């Protein structure tokens, strides 16, 4: 199957996700230091094909996928998930429709 993307890209991706979660003080959080630590540790290896390195790369790719997809899922959930009774106009807007307008007022309204 297709090969994984480079460790640098995955590392940057994870750190970007952490920054998106935490905000300004993202450098102090646990996950940031741990991830950087792990990437540095697994970098240096004497062999050309290192199984442990591949496994660590796969794990980091999975973690990046976890962070990104949780964020995207929650974003969609906030938009679309049932919030109880919504306004008709808002509801129509969610599926991309607009309510019809009748400038003269409906027939039975005075």
């Amino acid at each position, binding site marked *: 199957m297709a090969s994984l993307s480079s460790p640098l890209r995955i590392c940057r991706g994870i750190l970007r996700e952490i920054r998106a979660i935490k905000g300004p003080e993202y450098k102090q959080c646990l996950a940031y230091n741990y991830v950087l630590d792990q990437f540095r540790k697994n970098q240096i290896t*004497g062999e050309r094909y290192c199984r442990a390195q591949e496994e660590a790369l796969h794990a980091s790719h999975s973690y990046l996928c976890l962070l990104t*997809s*949780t964020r995207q899922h929650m974003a969609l*959930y906030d938009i679309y998930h049932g919030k109880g009774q919504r306004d008709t106009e808002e509801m129509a807007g969610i599926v991309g429709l607009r309510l019809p307008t009748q400038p003269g007022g409906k027939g039975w309204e005075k």
Partner: protein
Amino acid sequence: MQVLNPTWIGKTCLLITLVTDTMLRNLVRLHSRVGHALSPPIVYPRSQALKLPLTLLSVNSKYYSIITERKKFYKDVSISHGEGGMFEINLDQRKMKTPGGKLFTAPNEALAIAVANEWDTQKDTLKFYSMHMTTLCNTALDNPTFRSKDQIITAALKYLETDTICYRVEEPPTLVELQNNEWDPVLNWIEDRYNVVIGSSTNILGPEIPQATMDTFRQHLGSYNFWSMTGLEYVITQLKSVVLAFALIDKHITVEQAVLLSRLEEEFQIGHWGNVEWAHDVDLYELRARTAAGALFVHFSSESSTVKRKLMQD
């Protein structure tokens, strides 16, 4: 200092006993339904009805709470070493507990940090349905359905008889071709790797899995510990395929690829009829999150790493 009016005290006590009586009766009814014994709180101000979530009430609850959200009650999350080399999570100095009441312990640091990060991610309200690693750890620790490892293995292997990869269609021809191109390589890979025969079928009953194949897989799954097996069964349930789960856990394919292959027919139909964001995308991201969490959980539960330093010799 205000002198307390004796009649006032009398009236308040009466009120409290009245309130407590009805509250007690309600609580007893609740307990008999839920099935655990517990001493109810004595004083309830009338305005605050029974708002305590079930997690706080129960200590030996047979049932899990159905609370999906609650307010964030902590500021900092940190991890600490516990007994026996296990890691614990601290929410603002208090130790985190599982829904079953046990102390939350993770076997290694990586898992603990992943869980701590999930709790750290929450803002204002805790959304338990987005905390997949925490859920998996809680399931492994509490084992609420009281299953042994063998039962989990049996449940996992049941999916092989109706494996997604092995269930093929006969028409439309583009879909048939897509299934052959995408699914056949994975099937060949697993047949080579484990030396088994699985095969695909267009029959409604699914492929005929020989007993030797089941035995090989059962033996292989027996080598995983209980935690890894919990995670692996979770991945199989999410992807609806034993073959894809094995390919993912053996690091042959990535999470995104596994999810794509699992949803192959859906993606085909989306390509034809169009994408509906509030259904397709929501499903896709949720499946990705769950599968990634499961794969990571298995990886962390079954690995043990040591760092060996080589001395430079010249």
